Every structure is written in structure tokens, then in C-alpha cells.
């Protein structure tokens, strides 16, 4: 008898092996946020960040911001680019011809990215605490929930991106061309004046909401009772749902022929 649980477990093992056996990619997935942290913590040494009415040291802002940056890389960027490459090389077509259920394939891809996102979050936070003396995240439950909603949403958006990517060569340009401007205007690397047009535009996209909800979960100034930001989570989840809908409806298993 076939057990779907066994299939999913094997499939997740397969995804994890692929990830860890591509050491260069794995290394940079974890090191990118830390490299950025070192660079920007040095640049903005001694400054203060203002999030809503709260003022905290820059590093206390950067850790949650760079965690979201790392998670977006591990989920959205990684899924969109690796599936584009695998689609072009025929690996996805091969799977499509087996009894492997499509949902099991997709779920394993997403779960594998969630594992990477979780490890990356722990590494970045521990590095921030040990090297830059930032505050220990105040609401661990809220942090886990925010991470789960954000990571799953960006996984879904990564799956959806494969629909518009014509081939693996075009993948990096499209993936980064879409996400990097949003990452910048969302204040990931440097402050964006909240009253500016850019900040207002950023409110429409999920990245800013990921950063603020993550910041609230870390809650370095201990302002919040629960660390949960319902609105941010709902907006991210809505983006994720749209991504999932597109992915389920339009996902391509075969390379484009022309």
C-alpha cells in the first residue's frame, strides 16, 4: 500500500539533500543576511530607528529586517529559481509522469524551504545577540507564527513566479527585478521616511508587513502585549493566497517549447 505520508517524507528528504549538497547555495543562503548585518551595522553604528512611535537602536531593527530578507531569499528566490532550472532540465516533467501527486511535490518544496528559513532565523538572531548585543526576541510564539505566515506566503509567491518565468536563463533577472525594488522601499537596508511616497507604495506589498510584524514579535522596546500584528499577517497571508491560487492553476511542469 502506498502511504502519502511516506511519499511526502521521502520527497522532503530529496529536497533537503538537493539543498545541502549544493554547498555554495546553502552557504550564501545563510551568510547573506549576516554579511548585510555586518555591513549595515557598521554603516549605521550608533543610530536610532523609529518604527511607529518606538525608537530603538539600529541593530535591534536590522535583525528582524534581515531575518525577513533571509527568509525571502530562502523561500521566494530559492523556490522560483530552483524550480525554473529544474523545469528547464526536464526534472519536473519526469516527476509529472510518475504517480507522485503534484500536491506532495509542492508541499515538500515548501516544507524544505521552511526548514531552511527556520535555521537561518536562528543563526541570524544568535549572531546578532552574540556579536551586536541586540535584545533577545521578546515574543517567541509570535515570532514563530510570523515566521510561518511570512515564509509560507513567500514560498507561495515563489511558486507563482515560475508561471511568468519563461526559462531558467531569464529567471534571476525576473525574480530579482520584482523583489529587490520592493525590498528597498520597504526599508530593509536603510530607513525610508514613513510619510514618503515610497513608504506608501511599500504598504501595498508584503515585504514591509513582514518586517513590521517581525519587528513587533522581537519587540526590543517591549511595547506590545502579544507581539502579534494581525493586520500585517493578514496582508501577507492574502498575498500568499493569491500566489498559491496562481501556482495551483497555472504551474507548468514542462519547459516552454519555443
Amino acid at each position: 500500500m502506498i502511504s502519502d505520508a511516506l511519499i511526502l517524507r521521502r520527497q522532503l528528504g530529496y529536497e533537503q539533500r538537493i539543498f545541502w549538497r549544493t554547498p555554495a547555495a546553502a552557504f550564501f543562503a545563510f551568510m547573506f543576511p549576516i554579511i548585510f548585518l555586518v555591513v549595515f551595522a557598521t554603516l549605521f553604528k550608533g543610530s536610532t530607528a523609529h518604527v511607529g512611535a518606538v525608537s530603538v537602536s539600529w541593530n535591534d531593527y536590522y535583525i528582524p529586517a534581515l531575518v525577513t530578507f533571509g527568509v525571502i531569499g530562502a523561500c521566494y528566490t530559492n523556490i522560483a529559481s530552483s524550480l525554473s532550472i529544474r523545469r528547464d532540465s526536464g526534472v519536473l516533467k519526469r516527476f509529472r509522469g510518475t504517480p507522485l501527486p503534484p500536491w506532495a511535490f509542492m508541499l515538500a518544496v515548501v516544507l524544505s524551504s521552511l526548514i531552511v528559513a527556520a535555521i537561518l532565523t536562528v543563526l541570524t538572531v544568535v549572531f546578532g545577540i552574540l556579536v551586536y548585543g541586540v535584545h533577545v526576541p521578546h515574543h517567541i510564539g509570535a515570532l514563530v507564527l510570523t515566521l510561518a505566515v511570512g515564509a509560507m506566503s513567500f514560498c507561495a509567491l515563489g511558486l507563482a513566479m515560475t508561471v511568468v518565468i519563461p526559462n531558467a536563463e531569464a529567471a534571476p533577472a525576473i525574480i530579482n527585478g520584482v523583489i529587490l525594488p520592493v525590498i528597498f522601499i520597504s526599508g530593509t537596508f536603510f530607513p525610508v521616511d514613513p510619510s514618503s511616497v515610497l513608504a506608501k507604495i511599500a504598504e501595498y506589498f508584503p515585504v514591509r508587513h513582514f518586517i513590521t510584524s517581525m519587528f513587533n514579535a522581537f519587540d526590543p522596546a517591549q511595547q506590545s502585549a502579544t507581539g502579534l500584528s494581525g493586520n500585517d499577517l493578514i496582508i501577507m497571508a492574502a498575498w500568499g493566497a493569491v500566489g498559491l491560487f496562481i501556482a495551483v492553476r497555472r504551474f507548468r511542469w514542462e519547459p516552454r517549447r519555443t
Partner: protein
Amino acid sequence: MAAIVVEDLRKSYGALQAVRGVSFTVETGEVFGLLGPNGAGKTTIIEILEGYRRRDAGTVRVLGADPEHGGRKLQQRIGLVLQEVAVAPQLSVSELIDLFRSYYPSPRPTDEVLQLTGLTEKAGARVRTLSGGQQRRLDVALGLVGDPELIFLDEPTTGFDPSARRGAWELVRNMRSLGKTIVLTTHYMDEAQNLADRICVIAAGQVVAEGTPDTLRGTEEHRTFIRFAADGIDVEALPLKAQVEDGVATIETTTPTRAVNRVTSWALEHGLELDGLEVTRPSLEDVYLELTSDQ
């Protein structure tokens, strides 16, 4: 019961009519060869049977089901070996076989699959370290792993060196002896001749001939060729009409015994030796080229 029934199958890509009314039947337990030049429509046909492509018109039954709607139940009963080798290069041979085993209700043991495909020595090797032929054998292993009733092999030996091709043929014969029904596409005549119980020749999206390798050749059975070097021979003076091409004279005849006698008697009378004299029947290759040449 027939494993596959195809009736009046049609498929177009835009203005290009790739498959134009193809019909054939594949019996359970036979090796069925779809033979034809590149671009004849073989891969389109096999991909419709595999469930990858939708047909425009016609009836298709694979193991009793319509491949467009067969779903997981049907996929558990068929094995695919696609044209391109496509598996994750980071995984090892046995890891991939174990992964694919989990998809099927009663898979073959890993060791047995490795042995059947000659990959036992390479069980622990990463895919990226395998040679082209070994990767192709891994593809076959993954097609066999679910113990399918029906196996599709799409151009299994394209790009192989001669010894790798012999190995692949042996593998197909092994599968056949396990009682599998095998559908094989190829543009190599000798491959179809060596492996297939029946051959369907496709050209420009249509069936141009169908039969066993022997009956296909039989369509041209009445023709025999007498060939010899034309150098130093007055071809016009021969008792039978000959065509000369590349310095070789060819006489086509339906009564070879009498024709050979007349030509050799004439040569003896004139004190000539017919260098390179041979009497041949058309090879399957000749038949194939003849059949597909007008298209």
C-alpha cells in the same frame, strides 16, 4: 486484451499537423516499435499515450483507460523513459531509486532494479559522476522501479556508442522476458529490427507501413539486386538492363536465378571477372528509406 488502442489520432501545433490520423494496436506482452525519421510525429504520439499531451481528435486507450483522465491509478501501471535524462544530479543512484519506489504500490526491490540495469556497482555514486550511458540506464531503472505492466521508451539509445547500444538492447530484452509490454520509438532501423515484435513506420504524421520486421521486408520481397563493379565493363552490352551509380552496376530482378545465370554466362563468354559480385535482397533499411522518402 490489447495494451494500447489508437484510432484516428490527430494533433496539431498551430498550423503544423504533427499527427494526421494515426491508428495502431499494441498487444499485451509485445515490443512495439514506432519507427520514423526525426520530426515524423513519434514523440508527439508517445507523449499523448503517456498523458503529457492532449489530443485534438481520435480515440486512445492505454491499459483500458484514457490517458488524459487516467490519473494516478494509470500512472502506477506504466513506466516512462523519456528522451532527455532528467534527474537531480546531487542524488545518488540508490537514493533516486528509493525515492521513486515510494510512489508505487508494489515496487521492485532496489537491488533487483540495480542488477537488471547493470548499475549495482554504481549504487552509491552521485548522478553527476555517471557517464551518459549510465545515466540513461538510471532513467530506465526509474522507469522499471514501479514494476509497470507497460513501459514507454522514447529513443532509448540516441547518442549511444555501439557497445552502449548493445547493452541497452539487452536491457529491453530483459524487460520483455519479464512479460512487460514495451512501446519503443526510434529512428534507427536496426534497433527496431532487433528489438521489436512489430513495427509501425511513421512519416509526416501518418502510418506508412505496419507489420513484423519480416513482413515489412516482405512487401519488397519480389525484388532482388545483383551488384558488381562497373569498371571495365560495357554496361550497355549487358544482357540485362543495369543502373550505374558510384562505379557500381545494379541489376534489379524478380527472377534472380535466371538473371544471375545470364549475367555470369555473358561475363564468362567475354572473359570478364565481375569484381565485387553480390546478390542481395533489400534490407529493412532499404524498405524504410523507400517508405519514408516521399514524405
